[in-house]
């Protein structure tokens, strides 16, 4: 039992150290930007994974909440002059509250109906983003979003902002792990496995489904906020169905049954791929679509399953003791 924990911990520490050393080694701005965006995508996707992968619900409009977080963050820092460090958790709480409010009526629906409802809602949100000119700047969006600062130390530089993103994603991964392995996570999984049986076993499925939804919107909000202050310019074009599809793809490729490592790795692949394929420009998006089609046909259960297999063989244990 000790050996297992030590091995895993060691691996995690090595990865973290490598991540922290990255900008010192790699000086190219572009190559710093990609991991930053990747981290942001992973945060958003992990939230969606809690909802879809672990609780078995659906959302085809995740980008809308990502966008709400981005706009809220921009507005709070620019119009109200609040510091980024206060705004980030504030946006998270705001998005969580929105998730609770929207989730309650929407999660009465199931399956396709739920998908379409989230889709419709997301489209409405995007419409509001583009039409509510006084607040959101309409189609022109909001530009010159300020970088976070600590006193006179500014995080405007990509190298520095990278650290914010990396630390946040590590934190979020840890929090997600705790949620999933808690009794709440266990309840989420039961709902995914058989919602009816969960309800008849005494689980208030409505409460938990709404909670999962609110967690997903919370994550999306935080990711959105990080996004806004990283790219410094946002417009309704950044939060369309396409973006929702990207988050959804990361989750399903990572593991429909819900897998934190799977989602992380899928997030890395699906964030790096378009950038690496930029050389092919026109065909880049085509390849992206093709990748999704292929993965669904070849590995429908996602990367998570493969990772689980690999990890069980690396970290092999003699007793089959439950680790909860």
């Amino acid at each position, binding site marked *: 039992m000790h050996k297992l924990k030590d091995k895993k911990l060691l691996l995690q520490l090595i990865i973290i150290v490598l991540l922290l050393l990255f900008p010192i080694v790699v000086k190219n701005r572009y190559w710093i930007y990609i991991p930053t965006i990747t981290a942001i995508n992973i945060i958003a996707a992990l939230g969606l994974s809690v909802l879809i992968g672990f609780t078995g619900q659906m959302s085809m409009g995740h980008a809308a909440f990502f966008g709400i977080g981005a706009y809220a963050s921009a507005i709070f820092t620019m119009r109200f002059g609040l510091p980024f460090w206060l705004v980030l958790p504030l946006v998270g709480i705001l998005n969580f509250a929105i998730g609770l409010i929207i989730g309650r009526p929407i999660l009465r629906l199931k399956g396709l109906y739920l998908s379409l409802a989230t889709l419709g809602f997301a489209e409405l949100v995007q419409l509001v983003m583009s039409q509510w000119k006084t607040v959101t700047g309409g189609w022109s969006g909001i530009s010159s979003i300020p970088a976070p600062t600590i006193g006179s130390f500014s995080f405007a530089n990509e190298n520095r902002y990278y650290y914010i993103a990396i630390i946040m994603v590590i934190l979020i991964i840890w929090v997600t792990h705790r949620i999933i392995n808690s009794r709440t996570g266990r*309840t989420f*999984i039961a709902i995914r*496995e058989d919602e009816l049986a*969960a*309800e*008849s*076993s005494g689980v208030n499925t409505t409460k938990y489904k709404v*909670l999962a939804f609110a967690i997903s919107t919370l994550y999306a909000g935080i990711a959105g906020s990080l996004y806004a202050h990283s790219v410094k310019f946002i417009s309704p074009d950044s939060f369309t169905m396409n973006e929702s599809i990207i988050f959804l793809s990361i989750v399903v490729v990572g593991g429909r049954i819900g897998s934190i490592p799977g989602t992380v790795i899928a997030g890395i692949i699906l964030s790096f791929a378009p950038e690496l394929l930029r050389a092919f420009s026109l065909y880049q998006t085509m390849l992206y679509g093709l990748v999704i089609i292929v993965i669904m046909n070849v590995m429908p259960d996602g990367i998570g399953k493969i990772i689980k297999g690999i990890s069980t063989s690396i970290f092999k244990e003699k007793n089959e003791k*439950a680790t909860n």
Partner: protein
Amino acid sequence: MLLELNNVTKAFGGLVAVNDLSVSIEKGEIHGLIGPNGSGKTTVFNLISGFYKLTSGSVLLEGENISGLKPHVIVSKGIARTFQNIRLFPLMTVQENLLIGANCKLRSGVIGSIINLNSVKEEERLLRERTDEIIKFLEIEQYKYRLASDISYGVQRLVEIGRAMASECRLIMLDEPAAGLNPQEKTILMNTIKKIRDNGYTVLVVEHDMRLIMGICDLITILNFGEKIAEGNVEEVSTNPDVIEAYLGRRDTHA
């Protein structure tokens, strides 16, 4: 009186599935509910457990009206059920399945469980103790860490019953628990149900297997076409001509 159904009627549009049904179940009883296919037995279960809304009438649990409450609330009030075609959580272990069953007894909030407060740890420990007791009681210890999808049908049945017991309910409703079991497993089931009753639970059983019903039930209610056609103990029921007719059809007296 633990559970009372008073003039319960359930209509699906024009079809009346349960018609003016009144049944009383005493504490500590093993009560059987039988009848030919389509007589409304499962509908009655769904009405009691809150999945269907009553068209009229009421369901009282120790005097408290539970009609119209949500299913999970009814569980916390003290009624748990199993399903005809076994609904366990396939990718969770036997132990985890039971832990979910105990969910309704949890007092600590969700945030608490995420940040793992000490009070939560303590509650979790007690929870595990209790589910371990149930697993021992049902004699399925060797399957404790096995995935629910990975065990035999007979054991799955016991796990489902264990999950119901984990809710610390007063009444356990078993929907055709013997379906799909071999004779050995059925005997184990019969003894288990008796053991459960002896441990303080009240049991309501829907079954087609007459041997099981006759073997364990104190009182039996017979339904046909959604109505009660007879009620009594084993001896009374097995000699009741209406019951025989319902199951076997009218005996041609001119034969």
